[in-house]
C-alpha cells in the first residue's frame, strides 16, 4: 500500500468530501496558503476562494460562522491554527454548537467539524503546546476525535464531516509529517471503534494521539525485556470504545493509560475510573497513568521533554505495574 503523510491524508479527506458534497467548505487563518501545518495547501487551486478562504485572526468569528452556516444547512470545516486558541471560541463551541441541537428539540442540526492541532511542536511554550482533549471530552453534545496515524486521520475526518453533530477534530502537530499506509480507494472509520495496534498478554497500554507511536516504541523495548503489551488507541474519545478497552484489560489484567495532556483531570483519569468501576476484579495491579506534569509546558527544550510523557516514561510505568 502507498504511504502518505498525516497532513496529506487529512488534505485528501477534505478534498474528497468537498468533491462529494458542495456544502463542505474550509476556512481559517492562512488556509489559502496552507499555513501553519500544510493541511489545506493547494485546496484553493481546486475549489477556489468560494470554498477555501482566509479569515481575520478572530476565533470567535471562525466558529461563529460555522455554527450559523451549519444551522442553515452548510457543512463547514473551520481550522483553528493552534488548539490553544480554542479558548477564544469556547462559547461558540460549548454553548452554541454543542447545545443547540438539544435545546431546539432536534429541530436544527449542526454538522460542523472544528479541526485544530494540539500537543508539542518543540519549544513552542505554554500557549502553543497544550493538549486539551480532556476539556472537550467533558462537554456533552460534542464528539471528539484524536487520530494517531495517517490512515485514521483520513478515515475519521471523512466520518466527522458526514456527521450531523459538531465534532472537535484534534490533530497533533508532531504527527503531520509522519507517514503511514493509506489506501487509494475510499474508506470511512466509524466513531467509537478503538484500534489495537499490537497485542500482548501482559498489559494493556491505552494511548491517545501522539502517545500511540511513543507507546509502540515502548512496546518494542518492553518486548526485549520479556513483557508483551497490547497497545490500544480509542481514536475517538467521544464516543469512547469502552468495550474494547474493558475486553483488553480483561485479558491482560494490567493497564497503563498514556496521554499528552496534564494528568490532573485528564483523559487517563476518566478511562481509569471507568475501568475500576466496571471491572475492578480483573485488575492485578493498580491502574497507572502517564501524562504531562501539571505545569505549563516550558519553552526550554530540556524542561519541555522533562514535563511531557515519552516512550521511556511509558516503559517505566509498565515496569512498575508489572512488578507491583
Amino acid at each position, binding site marked *: 500500500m502507498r504511504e502518505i503523510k498525516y497532513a496529506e491524508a487529512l488534505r485528501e479527506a477534505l478534498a474528497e468530501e468537498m468533491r462529494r458534497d458542495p456544502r463542505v467548505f474550509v476556512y481559517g487563518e492562512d488556509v489559502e496558503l496552507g499555513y501553519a501545518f500544510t493541511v489545506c495547501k493547494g485546496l484553493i487551486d481546486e475549489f477556489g476562494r468560494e470554498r477555501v478562504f482566509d479569515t481575520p485572526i478572530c476565533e470567535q468569528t471562525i466558529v461563529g460562522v460555522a455554527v450559523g452556516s451549519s444551522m442553515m444547512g452548510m457543512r463547514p470545516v473551520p481550522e483553528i491554527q493552534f488548539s490553544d486558541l480554542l479558548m477564544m471560541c469556547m462559547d461558540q463551541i460549548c454553548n452554541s454548537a454543542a447545545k443547540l441541537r438539544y435545546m431546539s428539540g432536534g429541530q436544527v442540526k449542526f454538522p460542523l467539524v472544528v479541526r485544530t492541532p494540539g500537543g508539542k511542536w518543540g519549544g513552542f511554550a505554554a500557549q502553543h503546546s497544550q493538549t486539551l482533549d480532556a476539556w472537550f471530552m467533558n462537554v456533552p453534545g460534542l464528539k471528539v476525535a484524536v487520530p494517531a496515524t495517517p490512515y485514521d486521520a483520513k478515515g475519521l475526518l471523512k466520518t466527522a464531516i458526514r456527521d450531523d453533530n459538531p465534532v472537535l477534530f484534534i490533530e497533533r502537530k508532531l504527527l503531520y509529517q509522519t507517514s503511514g499506509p493509506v489506501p487509494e480507494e475510499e474508506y470511512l472509520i466509524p466513531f467509537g471503534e478503538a484500534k489495537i495496534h499490537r497485542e500482548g498478554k501482559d498489559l494493556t497500554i491505552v494511548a491517545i494521539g501522539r502517545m500511540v507511536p511513543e507507546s509502540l516504541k515502548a512496546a518494542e523495548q518492553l518486548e526485549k525485556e520479556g513483557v508483551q503489551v497490547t497497545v490500544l488507541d480509542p481514536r475517538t474519545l467521544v464516543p469512547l470504545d469502552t468495550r474494547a478497552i474493558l475486553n483488553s484489560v480483561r485479558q491482560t*489484567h494490567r493497564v497503563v493509560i498514556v496521554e499528552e495532556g496534564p494528568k490532573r483531570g485528564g483523559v487517563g483519569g476518566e478511562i481509569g475510573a471507568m475501568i475500576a468501576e466496571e471491572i*475492578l476484579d*480483573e485488575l*492485578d*495491579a493498580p491502574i497507572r497513568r502517564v501524562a504531562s506534569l501539571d505545569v505549563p509546558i516550558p519553552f526550554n527544550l530540556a524542561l519541555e521533554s522533562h514535563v511531557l510523557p515519552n516512550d521511556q516514561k511509558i516503559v517505566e510505568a509498565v515496569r512498575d505495574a508489572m*512488578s*507491583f
Partner: protein
Amino acid sequence: MATEVTIPNLGYTMTVAKILNWQKAVGDTVENGEILLEIETDKVNYGIESPASGVVKAILAKVGDEIPVGGLVAIIGKPDEEIDVRSYQKEKKEPPVPEKVQAAGKKEILPPVVPAAGGRVFASPLARKIARTKQVDLSRVMGSGRSGRIRMADVEKYILEGRPRKLEPTSSIGPVEVAEVIPLTTMRRTIAQRLAQSFHDAPHFNLCMEVDITEAKELLEKAIPKKAEGRLEVKLSLNDLFIKAVAVTLRDYPLLNARWKGDQVEVLRDINIGLAVALDNGLIVPAMERADQKRLWQIAKERIDLVERARQGRLTLPELERGTFTVSNLGMYDITFFTSILNPPQTGILSIGKTVDRPVVREGAIVIRPIVQMSLAIDHRVVDGAVGARFMQDLKQGLEKPGLLL
C-alpha cells in the same frame, strides 16, 4: 481445664483493641495455634491464635467491641467440659490487670508478636476474586509482588501446587508413612515467608574472617569489679562487646545500616541491633535501640531483658520492627562457623561462632589464642564486596584492640 483467650499487648501505645472478626464460633473445634479472631489496634491488624486445642466454649466480645489489653474475649475448653461462663463475665468487668502482674499471674504465655502475619493480607482485586471463587484462604498464599503482595499468578500457583493436604496423620505419600502433620503457626508461616522472600530476592554474599579476642576477653574480665553493686551488678558477656563493636563500626558504614525499598535505599538514622533469639517453636529478633550510643553495662542489661521477654512472648511490636542490622550467635551450640539469611529489609547480618583456642602464628612463633570466626552476609543490591570487607576489617580491629571502641 479451661483456657482463657485475652487481648495481648502489641505495642507501647496500645490500650484497647477492636474485634474485627471471629474465625470460630461457640462449639467449634480449634487447634492450638489456629487463628481464633482478628483484632485491630492503633497500628496493626492481628490474628490471635488459640492458646490451646479444644472447643470454643464461650465468646465474650462481639465484632466491633473495643476490649482493653488483657481483657478476656473467649474461653477454650474440653468438648465435655462444663464451664460457668457467668463467673468469667463478672471477672471481665474488672479493670485490666497491669502487664507485669498479668504476666506473673497467668499460666499461658501469649503468642509472640510477629509483624505482618495475621494482619491484613495485601492482594490484587483479581487475586481476591480468584481466591473467592476457588475458595482459597489468601493468608496461606505467598505473594510475589512488592512487599509480598499477592497477585493472580500466586493464587494460581497455590491452587496448582500449594493446596495443603488434609491435616490427618494417617495420610501417606508414596512408600513413606507420614508420622505427624504439623499445621503452621502464624510465626512459622511468617518466618517461612520472610526468609524465603529474603533468600529469593536479596542476592546474598558472605565475607568471613577470624578474630583474635585475647584482649577482648581481658577487657571483659576487668570491666566489672568483682564486688560490683547497683547498676554495675550485671554479668557482661562477649556478646555485649560484639554488639557494641558492630554498632560502633556501623557508624562509619551507613549503607550497611540501610534497607532496600524497591527503587531506593533508605539509610537509617538510628543503629538498632537485632538479636536473633531461638525459641522452642521458632525464632524472633528483638532489636536494641541505638546500641552504638550505649555503654557496655547498658547493652548487657538490655540484652538480658530482651532475650528473657522474647522467650516469654512479651516483646512489643516496636522492639520487633526497629532493627536495622542483625547479629546471630550460635557459639553456645558449639558451632564454629556459619552463615545467615538476611532479615529483610535489612542489608546486613553478622553470624558469630564459638570461641575456640587455636594455635596461631604471632611474631614467628606458634601461640594459642582464643579465636572467633565471623561471617557477614550482605544484600549485594545495596552494598558491594569492598565496603563489606572494610567493615569487617574495622570490626576486627575494634575487637582485637577493644580500647578503640570505648
